[in-house]
Protein backbone atom coordinates (compact mmCIF):
# COMPACT_ATOMS: atom_id res chain seq x y z
CA UNK A 1 0.00 0.00 0.00
CA UNK A 2 1.17 3.50 -0.71
CA UNK A 3 1.97 5.99 1.95
CA UNK A 4 -0.43 8.84 1.53
CA UNK A 5 -0.34 11.28 4.34
CA UNK A 6 1.32 11.61 7.68
CA UNK A 7 2.42 8.29 8.90
CA UNK A 8 0.05 8.00 11.85
CA UNK A 9 -3.00 8.78 9.74
CA UNK A 10 -2.04 6.20 7.18
CA UNK A 11 -1.59 3.60 9.88
CA UNK A 12 -5.05 4.26 11.24
CA UNK A 13 -6.72 3.95 7.92
CA UNK A 14 -4.97 0.71 7.44
CA UNK A 15 -6.02 -0.60 10.84
CA UNK A 16 -9.66 0.28 10.38
CA UNK A 17 -9.98 -1.46 7.06
CA UNK A 18 -8.31 -4.55 8.42
CA UNK A 19 -10.67 -4.59 11.38
CA UNK A 20 -13.65 -4.51 9.05
CA UNK A 21 -12.29 -7.28 6.89
CA UNK A 22 -11.69 -9.29 10.00
CA UNK A 23 -15.28 -8.88 11.19
CA UNK A 24 -16.70 -9.97 7.86
CA UNK A 25 -14.33 -12.91 7.75
CA UNK A 26 -15.23 -13.81 11.32
CA UNK A 27 -18.98 -13.88 10.71
CA UNK A 28 -18.54 -15.82 7.52
CA UNK A 29 -16.44 -18.30 9.40
CA UNK A 30 -19.00 -18.60 12.18
CA UNK A 31 -21.86 -19.16 9.75
CA UNK A 32 -19.89 -21.61 7.67
CA UNK A 33 -18.57 -23.72 10.52
CA UNK A 34 -21.72 -23.99 12.64
CA UNK A 35 -23.85 -24.23 9.53
CA UNK A 36 -21.93 -27.31 8.37
CA UNK A 37 -21.98 -28.72 11.90
CA UNK A 38 -25.73 -28.28 12.20
CA UNK A 39 -26.36 -29.55 8.68
CA UNK A 40 -24.40 -32.76 9.31
CA UNK A 41 -26.22 -33.29 12.59
CA UNK A 42 -29.55 -32.72 10.89
CA UNK A 43 -28.73 -35.12 8.05
CA UNK A 44 -27.70 -37.90 10.43
CA UNK A 45 -30.82 -37.47 12.54
CA UNK A 46 -33.13 -37.35 9.55
CA UNK A 47 -31.58 -40.51 8.13
CA UNK A 48 -31.95 -42.30 11.46
CA UNK A 49 -35.61 -41.29 11.46
CA UNK A 50 -37.25 -38.57 13.44
CA UNK A 51 -39.69 -35.73 13.30
CA UNK A 52 -38.28 -33.58 10.55
CA UNK A 53 -39.99 -30.42 11.72
CA UNK A 54 -38.67 -30.83 15.26
CA UNK A 55 -35.22 -31.69 13.98
CA UNK A 56 -35.06 -28.61 11.74
CA UNK A 57 -36.19 -26.40 14.63
CA UNK A 58 -33.74 -27.90 17.09
CA UNK A 59 -30.85 -27.63 14.62
CA UNK A 60 -31.63 -24.05 13.69
CA UNK A 61 -31.71 -23.28 17.40
CA UNK A 62 -28.47 -25.18 17.81
CA UNK A 63 -26.90 -23.08 15.09
CA UNK A 64 -28.05 -19.85 16.74
CA UNK A 65 -27.00 -20.57 20.31
CA UNK A 66 -23.68 -22.06 19.21
CA UNK A 67 -22.87 -18.92 17.25
CA UNK A 68 -24.07 -16.84 20.21
CA UNK A 69 -22.11 -18.75 22.83
CA UNK A 70 -18.86 -18.77 20.90
CA UNK A 71 -19.29 -15.13 20.03
CA UNK A 72 -19.70 -14.14 23.68
CA UNK A 73 -16.74 -16.34 24.51
CA UNK A 74 -14.62 -14.67 21.82
CA UNK A 75 -15.49 -11.26 23.28
CA UNK A 76 -14.41 -12.43 26.74
CA UNK A 77 -11.17 -13.85 25.46
CA UNK A 78 -10.34 -10.68 23.56
CA UNK A 79 -10.90 -8.56 26.66
CA UNK A 80 -8.71 -10.87 28.65
CA UNK A 81 -6.06 -10.83 25.96
CA UNK A 82 -5.84 -7.05 26.20
CA UNK A 83 -5.32 -7.17 29.93
CA UNK A 84 -3.02 -10.14 30.05
CA UNK A 85 -1.37 -11.29 26.91
CA UNK A 86 0.40 -14.32 28.42
CA UNK A 87 0.08 -17.11 25.92
CA UNK A 88 0.05 -20.07 28.29
CA UNK A 89 -2.71 -18.73 30.53
CA UNK A 90 -4.62 -17.77 27.43
CA UNK A 91 -4.57 -21.40 26.34
CA UNK A 92 -5.81 -22.55 29.75
CA UNK A 93 -8.67 -20.08 29.53
CA UNK A 94 -9.49 -21.31 26.07
CA UNK A 95 -9.74 -24.92 27.15
CA UNK A 96 -11.80 -24.12 30.22
CA UNK A 97 -14.12 -21.91 28.21
CA UNK A 98 -14.59 -24.51 25.50
CA UNK A 99 -15.50 -27.11 28.12
CA UNK A 100 -18.11 -24.80 29.63
CA UNK A 101 -19.56 -24.03 26.20
CA UNK A 102 -19.67 -27.73 25.33
CA UNK A 103 -21.56 -28.47 28.56
CA UNK A 104 -24.05 -25.68 27.91
CA UNK A 105 -24.50 -26.84 24.32
CA UNK A 106 -25.11 -30.40 25.47
CA UNK A 107 -27.65 -29.31 28.06
CA UNK A 108 -29.43 -27.17 25.50
CA UNK A 109 -29.43 -29.89 22.84
CA UNK A 110 -30.99 -32.38 25.24
CA UNK A 111 -33.44 -29.92 26.77
CA UNK A 112 -34.69 -28.59 23.47
CA UNK A 113 -34.94 -32.03 21.94
CA UNK A 114 -36.88 -33.32 24.94
CA UNK A 115 -39.15 -30.30 24.99
CA UNK A 116 -39.95 -30.58 21.28
CA UNK A 117 -40.66 -34.30 21.52
CA UNK A 118 -42.52 -33.98 24.82
CA UNK A 119 -40.11 -36.19 26.72
CA UNK A 120 -38.48 -35.83 30.10
CA UNK A 121 -34.89 -34.62 29.76
CA UNK A 122 -33.77 -37.40 32.12
CA UNK A 123 -35.06 -39.98 29.66
CA UNK A 124 -31.95 -39.59 27.44
CA UNK A 125 -29.72 -42.61 27.64
CA UNK A 126 -26.34 -41.96 29.18
CA UNK A 127 -24.48 -43.04 26.07
CA UNK A 128 -26.40 -40.51 23.99
CA UNK A 129 -25.68 -37.74 26.50
CA UNK A 130 -21.98 -38.55 26.35
CA UNK A 131 -22.04 -38.76 22.60
CA UNK A 132 -23.65 -35.35 22.25
CA UNK A 133 -21.33 -33.91 24.91
CA UNK A 134 -18.22 -35.19 23.17
CA UNK A 135 -19.50 -34.05 19.84
CA UNK A 136 -20.03 -30.57 21.18
CA UNK A 137 -16.69 -30.50 22.89
CA UNK A 138 -14.73 -31.69 19.87
CA UNK A 139 -16.73 -29.41 17.59
CA UNK A 140 -16.16 -26.27 19.57
CA UNK A 141 -12.54 -27.21 20.17
CA UNK A 142 -11.84 -27.61 16.47
CA UNK A 143 -13.72 -24.40 15.74
CA UNK A 144 -11.72 -22.48 18.31
CA UNK A 145 -8.35 -23.87 17.34
CA UNK A 146 -8.85 -23.18 13.66
CA UNK A 147 -10.03 -19.70 14.49
CA UNK A 148 -7.16 -18.99 16.90
CA UNK A 149 -4.66 -20.17 14.30
CA UNK A 150 -6.14 -17.89 11.72
CA UNK A 151 -6.22 -14.94 14.05
CA UNK A 152 -2.64 -15.45 15.11
CA UNK A 153 -1.47 -15.61 11.54
CA UNK A 154 -3.43 -12.48 10.76
CA UNK A 155 -1.94 -10.65 13.74
CA UNK A 156 1.51 -11.72 12.64
CA UNK A 157 0.88 -10.53 9.11
CA UNK A 158 -0.43 -7.26 10.39
CA UNK A 159 2.63 -6.82 12.58
CA UNK A 160 4.91 -7.47 9.64
CA UNK A 161 2.99 -5.06 7.45
CA UNK A 162 3.17 -2.43 10.16
CA UNK A 163 6.87 -2.98 10.50
CA UNK A 164 7.33 -2.67 6.76
CA UNK A 165 5.39 0.53 6.84
CA UNK A 166 7.53 1.86 9.67
CA UNK A 167 10.70 0.88 7.83
CA UNK A 168 9.43 2.67 4.75
CA UNK A 169 8.57 5.77 6.71
CA UNK A 170 12.00 5.72 8.30
CA UNK A 171 13.65 5.27 4.91
CA UNK A 172 11.69 8.17 3.58
CA UNK A 173 12.62 10.36 6.50
CA UNK A 174 16.27 9.49 6.06
CA UNK A 175 16.06 10.32 2.39
CA UNK A 176 14.34 13.63 2.91
CA UNK A 177 17.62 15.40 2.52
CA UNK A 178 18.62 17.77 5.23
CA UNK A 179 19.76 21.21 4.22
CA UNK A 180 23.30 20.77 2.97
CA UNK A 181 25.47 21.90 5.88
CA UNK A 182 28.00 23.31 3.48
CA UNK A 183 25.36 25.62 2.09
CA UNK A 184 24.17 26.47 5.58
CA UNK A 185 27.51 27.71 6.85
CA UNK A 186 28.59 29.40 3.64
CA UNK A 187 25.30 31.19 3.73
CA UNK A 188 25.75 32.37 7.30
CA UNK A 189 29.21 33.55 6.36
CA UNK A 190 27.89 35.56 3.42
CA UNK A 191 25.19 37.11 5.56
CA UNK A 192 27.82 38.06 8.09
CA UNK A 193 29.61 39.92 5.32
CA UNK A 194 26.37 41.52 4.17
CA UNK A 195 25.63 42.91 7.62
CA UNK A 196 28.37 45.49 7.11
CA UNK A 197 27.94 45.99 3.39
CA UNK A 198 24.19 46.07 2.97
CA UNK A 199 22.29 45.80 6.26
CA UNK A 200 18.89 45.84 4.57
CA UNK A 201 19.74 42.97 2.30
CA UNK A 202 21.22 41.16 5.27
CA UNK A 203 17.89 41.45 7.07
CA UNK A 204 16.05 40.12 4.05
CA UNK A 205 18.44 37.19 3.80
CA UNK A 206 18.05 36.32 7.46
CA UNK A 207 14.27 36.20 6.96
CA UNK A 208 14.65 33.93 3.96
CA UNK A 209 17.13 31.79 5.80
CA UNK A 210 14.62 31.41 8.64
CA UNK A 211 11.88 30.44 6.18
CA UNK A 212 14.07 27.77 4.66
CA UNK A 213 15.03 26.39 8.05
CA UNK A 214 11.44 26.35 9.24
CA UNK A 215 10.27 24.55 6.13
CA UNK A 216 12.98 21.97 6.64
CA UNK A 217 12.22 21.43 10.31
CA UNK A 218 8.42 21.22 9.94
CA UNK A 219 8.57 19.04 6.90
CA UNK A 220 8.73 15.79 8.84
CA UNK A 221 5.01 15.86 9.46
CA UNK A 222 4.02 15.73 5.84
CA UNK A 223 5.13 13.63 2.95
CA UNK A 224 3.82 16.03 0.34
CA UNK A 225 3.14 19.76 0.11
CA UNK A 226 1.47 22.01 -2.48
CA UNK A 227 3.95 22.89 -5.20
CA UNK A 228 3.43 26.62 -4.57
CA UNK A 229 4.91 26.17 -1.09
CA UNK A 230 7.89 24.31 -2.44
CA UNK A 231 8.37 26.99 -5.13
CA UNK A 232 8.43 29.75 -2.53
CA UNK A 233 11.10 27.97 -0.55
CA UNK A 234 13.15 27.39 -3.67
CA UNK A 235 12.90 31.13 -4.34
CA UNK A 236 14.31 31.76 -0.87
CA UNK A 237 17.00 29.20 -1.42
CA UNK A 238 17.99 30.79 -4.74
CA UNK A 239 18.04 34.27 -3.23
CA UNK A 240 20.45 33.00 -0.57
CA UNK A 241 22.66 31.27 -3.12
CA UNK A 242 22.65 34.46 -5.21
CA UNK A 243 24.26 36.24 -2.30
CA UNK A 244 27.10 33.75 -2.47
CA UNK A 245 27.43 33.38 -6.22
CA UNK A 246 26.49 36.99 -7.06
CA UNK A 247 26.49 37.51 -10.83
CA UNK A 248 27.75 33.99 -11.47
CA UNK A 249 24.23 32.70 -10.89
CA UNK A 250 21.42 33.65 -13.27
CA UNK A 251 17.98 32.21 -12.61
CA UNK A 252 14.77 32.02 -14.58
CA UNK A 253 11.61 30.50 -13.10
CA UNK A 254 8.31 29.79 -14.87
CA UNK A 255 5.44 28.04 -13.12
CA UNK A 256 2.19 27.24 -14.94
CA UNK A 257 -0.80 28.27 -12.79
CA UNK A 258 -2.35 24.78 -12.72
CA UNK A 259 0.90 23.34 -11.38
CA UNK A 260 0.81 25.47 -8.25
CA UNK A 261 -1.82 23.46 -6.39
CA UNK A 262 -0.36 20.06 -7.20
CA UNK A 263 1.27 18.03 -4.47
CA UNK A 264 4.99 17.33 -4.39
CA UNK A 265 7.31 15.73 -1.85
CA UNK A 266 8.94 18.60 0.05
CA UNK A 267 12.50 19.59 -0.87
CA UNK A 268 12.30 17.69 -4.15
CA UNK A 269 12.59 20.76 -6.37
CA UNK A 270 15.08 22.21 -3.91
CA UNK A 271 17.24 19.11 -4.25
CA UNK A 272 17.08 19.33 -8.05
CA UNK A 273 18.05 23.00 -7.99
CA UNK A 274 20.82 22.34 -5.51
CA UNK A 275 22.15 19.67 -7.83
CA UNK A 276 21.94 22.05 -10.78
CA UNK A 277 23.85 24.71 -8.84
CA UNK A 278 26.47 22.23 -7.76
CA UNK A 279 27.22 21.10 -11.31
CA UNK A 280 26.20 24.11 -13.35
CA UNK A 281 27.43 26.99 -11.22
CA UNK A 282 29.71 26.09 -8.32
CA UNK A 283 32.21 24.21 -10.47
CA UNK A 284 32.35 26.77 -13.24
CA UNK A 285 34.43 29.86 -12.53
CA UNK A 286 32.30 31.80 -15.04
CA UNK A 287 29.04 30.63 -13.44
CA UNK A 288 25.95 29.85 -15.49
CA UNK A 289 22.19 29.82 -15.89
CA UNK A 290 19.54 27.83 -14.10
CA UNK A 291 16.04 27.54 -15.51
CA UNK A 292 13.15 26.09 -13.60
CA UNK A 293 9.95 25.20 -15.38
CA UNK A 294 6.91 23.61 -13.76
CA UNK A 295 3.89 22.51 -15.76
CA UNK A 296 1.16 19.90 -15.61
CA UNK A 297 0.19 17.36 -18.19
CA UNK A 298 -2.32 14.49 -17.94
CA UNK A 299 -2.64 15.11 -14.23
CA UNK A 300 1.10 14.80 -13.75
CA UNK A 301 3.35 17.56 -12.50
CA UNK A 302 6.34 18.00 -14.80
CA UNK A 303 9.43 19.75 -13.48
CA UNK A 304 12.32 20.77 -15.71
CA UNK A 305 15.49 22.08 -14.10
CA UNK A 306 18.07 23.16 -16.64
CA UNK A 307 21.61 24.20 -15.87
CA UNK A 308 24.61 25.22 -17.94
CA UNK A 309 27.18 22.53 -18.46
CA UNK A 310 27.39 19.06 -19.84
CA UNK A 311 26.78 15.58 -18.53
CA UNK A 312 30.27 14.23 -18.20
CA UNK A 313 31.74 11.08 -16.78
CA UNK A 314 31.25 11.10 -13.04
CA UNK A 315 34.15 12.53 -11.11
CA UNK A 316 35.60 10.31 -8.42
CA UNK A 317 34.45 12.84 -5.84
CA UNK A 318 30.86 12.58 -7.11
CA UNK A 319 28.75 10.47 -4.85
CA UNK A 320 25.65 10.99 -7.02
CA UNK A 321 23.85 10.97 -3.71
CA UNK A 322 21.60 13.90 -4.55
CA UNK A 323 19.95 12.34 -7.57
CA UNK A 324 19.92 8.83 -6.16
CA UNK A 325 18.20 10.20 -3.11
CA UNK A 326 15.53 11.97 -5.17
CA UNK A 327 14.94 8.77 -7.17
CA UNK A 328 14.51 6.66 -4.06
CA UNK A 329 12.12 9.13 -2.49
CA UNK A 330 9.99 9.23 -5.61
CA UNK A 331 9.99 5.47 -5.79
CA UNK A 332 8.94 5.05 -2.15
CA UNK A 333 6.10 7.51 -2.57
CA UNK A 334 4.84 6.75 -6.07
CA UNK A 335 6.35 3.44 -7.16
CA UNK A 336 6.93 3.39 -10.89
CA UNK A 337 4.54 6.21 -11.63
CA UNK A 338 7.09 8.94 -10.94
CA UNK A 339 10.34 9.38 -12.83
CA UNK A 340 13.55 11.36 -12.89
CA UNK A 341 15.70 11.62 -15.99
CA UNK A 342 18.81 13.59 -16.92
CA UNK A 343 19.70 14.55 -20.43
CA UNK A 344 22.11 16.73 -22.35
CA UNK A 345 20.72 19.76 -24.13
CA UNK A 346 22.88 22.13 -26.16
CA UNK A 347 25.43 23.18 -23.57
CA UNK A 348 22.91 22.42 -20.85
CA UNK A 349 21.87 19.57 -18.63
CA UNK A 350 18.14 19.07 -18.11
CA UNK A 351 16.73 17.19 -15.16
CA UNK A 352 13.12 16.18 -15.72
CA UNK A 353 10.84 14.90 -12.98
CA UNK A 354 7.30 13.61 -13.41
CA UNK A 355 5.12 13.33 -10.34
CA UNK A 356 1.63 11.78 -10.46
CA UNK A 357 -1.29 13.52 -8.77
CA UNK A 358 -1.71 11.01 -6.00
CA UNK A 359 0.59 8.85 -4.00
Amino acid at each position, binding site marked *: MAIQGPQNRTMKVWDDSTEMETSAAYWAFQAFYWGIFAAIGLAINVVSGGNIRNLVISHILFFLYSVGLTHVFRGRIQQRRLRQPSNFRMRLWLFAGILVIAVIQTVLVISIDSALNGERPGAWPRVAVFGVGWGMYIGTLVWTMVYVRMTERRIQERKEAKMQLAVRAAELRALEAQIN*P*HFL*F*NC*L*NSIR*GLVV*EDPQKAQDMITRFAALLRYNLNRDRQHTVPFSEEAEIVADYLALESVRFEDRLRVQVTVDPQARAMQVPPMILQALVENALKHGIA*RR*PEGGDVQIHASSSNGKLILHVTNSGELGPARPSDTQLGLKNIRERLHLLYGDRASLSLQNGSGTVVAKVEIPRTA
Partner: protein
Amino acid sequence: MKALIIDDERLARAELRRLLTAHPEIEIAGEACNGDQALALIAQTSPDLLLLDVQMPGMTGFDVLERLDDVPQVIFTTAYDAYAIKAFEVNALDYLMKPIAPVRLAAALSKVRPRSGPTRLERVFVRDGDRCWIVALPDIYLLESEGNYTRVHFNGHRPLIRRSLNALETQLDPAVFFRANRQQILNLKWIDKVDLGVAGGLSVTLRGGRAVEMSRRQSGRLREILSL
Protein backbone atom coordinates in the same frame (compact mmCIF):
# COMPACT_ATOMS: atom_id res chain seq x y z
CA MET B 1 54.10 38.89 6.91
CA LYS B 2 52.50 38.63 3.53
CA ALA B 3 49.25 36.78 3.19
CA LEU B 4 46.95 35.92 0.30
CA ILE B 5 43.20 35.46 0.60
CA ILE B 6 41.92 32.78 -1.75
CA ASP B 7 38.17 32.27 -1.84
CA ASP B 8 35.63 32.19 -4.64
CA GLU B 9 33.05 34.26 -2.80
CA ARG B 10 33.54 37.99 -2.79
CA LEU B 11 31.64 38.42 0.48
CA ALA B 12 33.75 35.78 2.16
CA ARG B 13 36.95 37.52 1.06
CA ALA B 14 35.63 40.90 2.19
CA GLU B 15 34.69 39.41 5.53
CA LEU B 16 38.12 37.88 6.04
CA ARG B 17 39.79 41.14 5.03
CA ARG B 18 37.74 42.96 7.65
CA LEU B 19 38.68 40.41 10.28
CA LEU B 20 42.36 40.77 9.39
CA THR B 21 42.33 44.51 10.10
CA ALA B 22 42.70 43.50 13.75
CA HIS B 23 46.07 41.96 12.86
CA PRO B 24 48.36 44.66 11.52
CA GLU B 25 51.29 42.22 11.35
CA ILE B 26 49.53 40.52 8.43
CA GLU B 27 49.84 42.35 5.19
CA ILE B 28 47.28 41.28 2.61
CA ALA B 29 49.30 40.94 -0.56
CA GLY B 30 46.30 40.10 -2.69
CA GLU B 31 43.03 38.26 -3.21
CA ALA B 32 42.22 35.50 -5.63
CA CYS B 33 38.82 34.09 -6.50
CA ASN B 34 39.97 30.91 -8.22
CA GLY B 35 42.92 28.55 -8.53
CA ASP B 36 44.50 30.10 -11.61
CA GLN B 37 44.47 33.55 -10.12
CA ALA B 38 45.86 32.14 -6.91
CA LEU B 39 48.79 30.43 -8.64
CA ALA B 40 49.67 33.61 -10.51
CA LEU B 41 49.51 35.68 -7.33
CA ILE B 42 51.61 33.21 -5.37
CA ALA B 43 54.31 33.22 -8.05
CA GLN B 44 54.23 36.99 -8.11
CA THR B 45 54.21 37.77 -4.39
CA SER B 46 55.72 34.63 -2.74
CA PRO B 47 53.56 35.01 0.36
CA ASP B 48 54.31 33.64 3.83
CA LEU B 49 50.73 32.58 4.35
CA LEU B 50 47.76 31.39 2.34
CA LEU B 51 44.25 31.76 3.70
CA LEU B 52 42.82 29.13 1.43
CA ASP B 53 39.24 28.09 0.79
CA VAL B 54 39.02 24.39 0.07
CA GLN B 55 35.97 24.28 -2.21
CA MET B 56 36.37 26.50 -5.25
CA PRO B 57 35.16 26.19 -8.82
CA GLY B 58 37.62 24.71 -11.29
CA MET B 59 40.46 24.05 -8.91
CA THR B 60 40.07 23.12 -5.26
CA GLY B 61 42.39 24.39 -2.58
CA PHE B 62 44.22 21.05 -2.69
CA ASP B 63 44.66 21.33 -6.46
CA VAL B 64 46.29 24.72 -5.94
CA LEU B 65 48.73 23.34 -3.38
CA GLU B 66 49.59 20.42 -5.62
CA ARG B 67 50.79 22.80 -8.32
CA LEU B 68 53.17 24.63 -6.01
CA ASP B 69 56.87 23.78 -5.80
CA ASP B 70 57.24 25.32 -2.41
CA VAL B 71 54.21 25.49 -0.19
CA PRO B 72 53.75 28.54 2.03
CA GLN B 73 52.13 28.14 5.40
CA VAL B 74 48.47 27.37 4.89
CA ILE B 75 45.39 28.14 6.93
CA PHE B 76 42.36 26.50 5.39
CA THR B 77 39.04 28.25 5.56
CA THR B 78 36.05 26.00 5.13
CA ALA B 79 32.33 26.09 5.64
CA TYR B 80 31.91 22.61 6.91
CA ASP B 81 33.64 19.83 8.78
CA ALA B 82 34.20 17.29 6.04
CA TYR B 83 37.02 19.25 4.55
CA ALA B 84 38.36 20.38 7.88
CA ILE B 85 39.21 16.82 8.74
CA LYS B 86 41.07 16.47 5.49
CA ALA B 87 42.81 19.74 6.12
CA PHE B 88 43.93 18.42 9.47
CA GLU B 89 45.40 15.36 7.85
CA VAL B 90 47.42 17.47 5.47
CA ASN B 91 48.93 19.12 8.49
CA ALA B 92 47.91 22.63 7.62
CA LEU B 93 48.87 25.28 10.10
CA ASP B 94 45.25 25.47 11.13
CA TYR B 95 41.79 25.42 9.68
CA LEU B 96 39.04 27.94 10.24
CA MET B 97 35.34 27.35 10.01
CA LYS B 98 33.20 29.96 8.32
CA PRO B 99 31.81 32.20 9.67
CA ILE B 100 35.19 32.75 11.27
CA ALA B 101 35.36 33.62 14.95
CA PRO B 102 37.91 36.42 15.57
CA VAL B 103 39.41 34.47 18.48
CA ARG B 104 40.02 31.42 16.29
CA LEU B 105 41.60 33.58 13.63
CA ALA B 106 43.96 35.11 16.21
CA ALA B 107 44.93 31.66 17.47
CA ALA B 108 45.64 30.46 13.94
CA LEU B 109 47.66 33.53 13.04
CA SER B 110 49.79 33.18 16.15
CA LYS B 111 51.27 30.02 14.61
CA VAL B 112 52.44 31.77 11.48
CA ARG B 113 56.21 32.32 11.20
CA PRO B 114 57.98 34.51 8.67
CA ARG B 115 59.81 32.65 5.90
CA SER B 116 63.42 31.82 6.71
CA GLY B 117 64.83 32.48 3.24
CA PRO B 118 63.44 32.98 -0.19
CA THR B 119 65.28 30.12 -1.96
CA ARG B 120 65.03 27.24 0.48
CA LEU B 121 62.23 24.75 0.27
CA GLU B 122 60.31 24.59 3.54
CA ARG B 123 57.31 22.45 2.84
CA VAL B 124 56.08 20.20 0.10
CA PHE B 125 52.55 19.19 -0.71
CA VAL B 126 52.08 15.52 -1.45
CA ARG B 127 48.96 13.75 -2.59
CA ASP B 128 48.52 10.02 -2.66
CA GLY B 129 45.09 8.98 -3.83
CA ASP B 130 42.60 10.41 -1.36
CA ARG B 131 45.19 11.46 1.18
CA CYS B 132 47.30 14.55 1.15
CA TRP B 133 50.01 15.95 3.31
CA ILE B 134 51.84 19.21 3.70
CA VAL B 135 55.20 17.85 4.79
CA ALA B 136 57.70 20.03 6.60
CA LEU B 137 61.17 19.27 5.29
CA PRO B 138 62.69 18.33 8.68
CA ASP B 139 60.18 15.44 8.86
CA ILE B 140 61.49 13.91 5.65
CA TYR B 141 64.25 11.37 6.25
CA LEU B 142 64.73 10.01 2.77
CA LEU B 143 64.06 11.04 -0.82
CA GLU B 144 64.26 8.36 -3.51
CA SER B 145 64.29 8.89 -7.24
CA GLU B 146 61.75 7.00 -9.32
CA GLY B 147 62.13 8.30 -12.85
CA ASN B 148 60.62 11.74 -13.06
CA TYR B 149 59.05 11.23 -9.64
CA THR B 150 60.47 11.23 -6.16
CA ARG B 151 59.36 9.04 -3.31
CA VAL B 152 59.15 11.03 -0.09
CA HIS B 153 59.65 9.11 3.16
CA PHE B 154 58.22 10.65 6.34
CA ASN B 155 56.23 9.52 9.41
CA GLY B 156 55.81 6.02 8.03
CA HIS B 157 54.34 7.28 4.74
CA ARG B 158 56.13 7.15 1.40
CA PRO B 159 54.05 8.78 -1.31
CA LEU B 160 55.34 9.92 -4.70
CA ILE B 161 55.82 13.56 -5.59
CA ARG B 162 55.66 14.81 -9.16
CA ARG B 163 59.18 16.23 -9.26
CA SER B 164 62.53 14.68 -10.14
CA LEU B 165 65.11 14.15 -7.41
CA ASN B 166 67.57 16.43 -9.24
CA ALA B 167 65.06 19.26 -9.44
CA LEU B 168 64.27 18.90 -5.77
CA GLU B 169 67.93 18.82 -4.78
CA THR B 170 68.56 22.35 -6.06
CA GLN B 171 66.02 23.67 -3.55
CA LEU B 172 67.20 21.69 -0.53
CA ASP B 173 69.44 22.93 2.25
CA PRO B 174 72.81 21.15 1.60
CA ALA B 175 73.62 21.32 5.30
CA VAL B 176 70.66 19.01 6.02
CA PHE B 177 70.02 16.97 2.91
CA PHE B 178 72.87 14.86 1.63
CA ARG B 179 73.13 12.99 -1.65
CA ALA B 180 73.84 9.36 -0.74
CA ASN B 181 74.00 7.99 -4.27
CA ARG B 182 72.39 8.49 -7.67
CA GLN B 183 69.05 7.37 -6.36
CA GLN B 184 68.79 8.71 -2.83
CA ILE B 185 69.06 11.83 -0.72
CA LEU B 186 68.98 11.45 3.04
CA ASN B 187 68.37 13.82 5.91
CA LEU B 188 71.58 14.04 7.99
CA LYS B 189 69.61 14.82 11.15
CA TRP B 190 67.93 11.42 10.89
CA ILE B 191 71.17 9.38 10.88
CA ASP B 192 71.16 6.82 13.66
CA LYS B 193 74.38 4.92 12.94
CA VAL B 194 77.06 4.57 10.30
CA ASP B 195 78.77 1.24 9.43
CA LEU B 196 81.48 0.30 7.03
CA GLY B 197 79.89 -1.31 3.98
CA VAL B 198 81.12 -4.27 1.97
CA ALA B 199 82.52 -2.41 -0.99
CA GLY B 200 84.37 0.14 1.11
CA GLY B 201 81.48 2.58 1.07
CA LEU B 202 79.55 3.55 4.17
CA SER B 203 76.24 2.05 5.18
CA VAL B 204 73.99 4.51 7.00
CA THR B 205 71.11 3.41 9.19
CA LEU B 206 68.45 6.05 9.71
CA ARG B 207 66.30 6.36 12.79
CA GLY B 208 63.44 3.96 12.23
CA GLY B 209 65.80 1.32 10.84
CA ARG B 210 65.99 2.19 7.16
CA ALA B 211 69.51 1.42 5.76
CA VAL B 212 71.04 3.46 2.93
CA GLU B 213 74.17 2.39 1.05
CA MET B 214 76.45 5.33 0.19
CA SER B 215 78.34 5.53 -3.05
CA ARG B 216 82.14 5.41 -2.75
CA ARG B 217 82.56 9.08 -3.62
CA GLN B 218 79.81 10.29 -1.30
CA SER B 219 81.12 8.09 1.52
CA GLY B 220 84.25 10.16 1.53
CA ARG B 221 82.30 13.40 1.69
CA LEU B 222 80.09 12.07 4.46
CA ARG B 223 83.21 11.14 6.49
CA GLU B 224 84.32 14.77 6.18
CA ILE B 225 80.97 16.21 7.18
CA LEU B 226 80.52 13.91 10.13
CA SER B 227 84.30 14.18 10.84
CA LEU B 228 84.64 10.43 11.21
